[in-house]
C-alpha cells in the first residue's frame, strides 16, 4: 500500500533514544487498526498495524482525518466500522459484534483544547484520573513522578480557568498519564499555543516517553514537532494512509509540499556531539565526517547524538565551496535528484551527504544558471538548523 512502509519503524529514528523504552521489545506488541468511518462528505479508511511502542506521529493536513482516527480509537465515533486491537485485546470488531465503550478502553488522551474539569483544581483533575485508572498495568506511574516530570507542583491548587494555555496542556498531560493508559493519544497538544509557549512545552513532551514509556500516538500537522518527537510517522491524506515508516526515511522521501502549501519539506539529520565551544557558545557536531556548528546544546555531552531538522527552504546550493560568508554550515555532497515544478518558480534538489540526504528549495532559474544536474558535486549552505531539544537523550 505504501512504498515507504518498513517492517520495523523503530530503526533509525529510535537511535537517538538510546537504550530507553524506545528500544524494540522482544516480541513487538501491535496496535492493529483496520477501520472505516463514513459520514457526510468524509470517508476515513485506515488499515495499518503500528508497533505499540515509542512515539508514532499521525501527520497530515487539516481535514485529513487525523482527529477522526483518534476519536475512532477512543470509541467516540459511533459510525466506525472494522477492527481495532491493542496487543491482542480487541476494542472494536464490527463483524464479531465487539465495540468496547470509551470508558472500557485503556487509552489516555489529551485534547486540543485541554478539557480539564473546571469544577476541580489541578490536583482534583489528577486524582480523578488516578482513582479510575483501574488496571495496574502501568501502576509504576506515581502521582509524584507525574507532578515532577511536568512541574505541576505549583499548579496543584489552581483552577483550570486560571492557567495559561501551556500550563493547561501540562496538567492535561499529567491527567492522561495518571489514568495509567496502555496507549497515550495526544491530539495536537501544541496547536493552540503561541510560539513561545510551544517552546516551553516541547521539552516536557520530549521527556515524557523516555520517562514513562507509554506507547504514544502524537497527532500533529507541524513537521518540526513531528521530526523532533516521533520515532515513526503515519501520514494521512484525505482519509487514507499515504505513508508509514521511520521518521527520518518518511521525511526524507515524502514530498511534504505536495500535501499542502503550508507544509515545508525538511530533512532530519542525526549528528554526534564533537565538542562544545565556551567562548562562542557553540556546539560542534559531526555529520558523516563533516563538521557543523550550532548554538550550544547544553544538555548533550560529547559523544551523544543530536537530531537536527533542516527545512528545504533554509538550504542554498553552490557548485564551488563559497568564499567566506556569514553562513557557518556548508556541507559537501552529491546532487541525486532535481524535481522541477513547472507551475511554480521552484525546484527541489536532493543532496546525498553519505548516510543522510538534504533537500534544498531553489528557484528553477538558479538551477539552470548553476548548471545543476544529477551526479554533480554540490555544496549545501544551511541558513538555519532546528535542534531537537530532548533533555537527557
Amino acid at each position: 500500500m505504501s512504498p515507504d512502509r518498513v517492517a520495523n519503524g523503530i530503526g533509525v529514528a529510535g537511535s537517538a533514544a538510546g537504550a530507553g523504552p524506545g528500544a524494540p521489545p522482544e516480541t513487538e506488541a501491535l496496535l492493529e487498526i483496520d477501520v472505516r468511518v463514513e459520514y457526510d462528505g468524509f470517508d476515513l479508511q485506515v488499515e495499518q498495524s503500528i508497533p505499540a511502542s515509542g512515539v508514532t506521529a499521525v501527520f497530515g493536513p487539516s481535514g485529513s482525518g487525523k482527529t477522526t482516527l483518534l476519536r475512532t480509537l477512543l470509541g467516540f465515533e459511533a459510525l466506525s466500522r472494522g477492527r481495532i486491537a491493542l496487543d491482542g485485546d480487541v476494542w472494536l470488531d464490527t463483524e464479531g459484534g465487539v465495540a468496547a465503550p470509551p470508558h472500557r478502553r485503556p487509552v489516555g488522551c489529551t485534547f486540543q483544547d485541554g478539557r480539564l474539569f473546571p469544577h476541580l483544581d489541578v490536583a482534583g483533575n489528577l486524582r480523578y484520573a488516578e482513582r479510575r485508572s483501574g488496571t495496574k498495568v502501568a501502576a509504576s506511574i506515581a502521582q509524584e513522578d507525574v507532578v515532577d516530570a511536568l512541574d505541576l507542583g505549583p499548579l496543584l491548587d489552581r483552577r483550570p480557568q486560571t492557567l495559561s494555555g501551556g500550563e493547561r496542556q501540562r496538567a492535561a498531560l499529567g491527567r492522561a498519564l495518571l489514568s495509567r493508559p496502555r496507549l497515550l493519544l495526544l491530539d495536537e497538544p501544541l496547536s493552540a499555543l503561541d510560539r513561545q509557549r510551544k517552546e516551553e512545552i516541547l521539552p516536557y513532551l520530549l521527556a515524557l516517553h523516555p520517562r514513562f514509556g507509554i506507547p504514544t500516538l502524537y497527532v500533529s500537522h507541524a513537521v518540526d514537532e513531528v521530526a523532533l518527537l516521533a520515532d515513526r510517522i503515519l501520514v494521512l491524506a484525505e482519509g487514507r494512509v499515504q505513508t508509514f515508516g521511520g521518521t527520518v526515511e518518511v521525511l526524507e522521501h515524502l514530498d511534504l509540499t505536495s500535501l499542502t502549501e503550508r507544509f515545508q519539506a525538511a530533512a532530519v539529520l542525526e549528528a554526534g556531539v564533537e565538542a562544545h565551544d565556551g567562548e562562542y557558545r557553540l556546539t560542534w557536531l559531526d555529520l558523516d565526517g563533516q563538521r557543523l556548528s550550532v548554538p550550544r546544546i547544553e544538555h548533550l555531552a560529547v559523544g551523544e547524538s543530536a537530531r537536527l531538522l533542516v527545512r528545504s527552504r533554509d538550504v542554498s546550493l553552490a557548485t564551488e565551496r563559497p568564499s567566506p560568508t556569514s553562513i557557518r554550515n556548508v556541507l559537501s555532497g552529491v546532487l541525486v535528484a532535481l524535481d522541477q515544478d513547472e507551475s511554480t518558480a521552484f525546484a527541489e534538489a536532493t543532496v546525498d551527504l553519505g548516510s543522510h540526504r538534504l533537500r534544498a528549495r531553489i528557484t528553477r532559474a538558479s538551477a539552470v544558471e548553476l548548471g545543476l544536474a544529477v551526479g554533480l558535486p554540490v555544496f549545501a549552505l544551511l541558513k538555519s538548523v532546528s535542534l531537537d531539544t530532548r533533555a537527557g537523550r
Partner: protein
Amino acid sequence: MELPELGPLWLSLQLAAAATAVLIVLGTPLAWWLARTRSRIKPVIEAVTALPLVLPPTVLGFYLLLLMSPRSWLGGLWVEITDTTLTFSFMGLLVASVVYSLPFMVQPLQAAFESLGRGPLEAAAALRASPIDAFLTVAAPLSLRGFLTAAVLTFAHTIGEFGVVLMVGGNIPGKTRVISIAIYEHVETLRYAEAHTLAAVLMLFAFAVLVFVYVFNRRLPVHVA
C-alpha cells in the same frame, strides 16, 4: 388585627418542597435524555413536556381530575392500594403539581446539560468514568446553576399554582387549602385584611428566595467552557 390562619402557607410550602424533590428525581433523567438524544421522537417528548406551559390550568386540572377519579384506572388503583381517593387529597395535589411544574424543572436542566457540550463527558469517558459516574462527577457539578434555577422555578411555580389545585384538590382546610386558594377565599368573603397578610407573606417569601438565588448564583464558580 386578627392574624389569619397560617396553615395554608405551611401546606403550600410542603407541597412545593415535595413536588420539587419528586421532579428532581424524575426530571433529571428526562432532561438528560432530551439533551443527548438524537431520537426522532425527541420533538414529541419536548412538546409533551412543554404542554403545561401553554394549557389553561383548568384544562390540565380537568383532565387530571378525570384521571384521578376513583372510576378511572389510576384513581381506582389508588383507592385499592391506599383505601383513600387521590382526588381532594394531598397526594392528588402532589401528582397534579408534578405534572403542572414539569417544564419548569426539565427545561432549565435540559439547557444546562446541552450547554455542557460533549467535551467534559468525553474527557471523563477517556479517563474511564462510566456514563453514570461521568454524570454524577462531571455533568451534575458543572450543571449546578441549572439545578438551582430549575429547583427554584419549580418550587415557586408550585407555590403559586391555583387553577389546577382548585380543580383537583378543592378547598379542604388542612388538606388541600393551599395559600393561593386561601387568599382567593378571603377575597371572596371580603376578608381583605387576612388576604392582605397572606399576600404580603407570599410576596416577601418570593422576594427573599429570588435574592438568595441571585446571591448564591454569583458565588458559584464561573465555569468557562
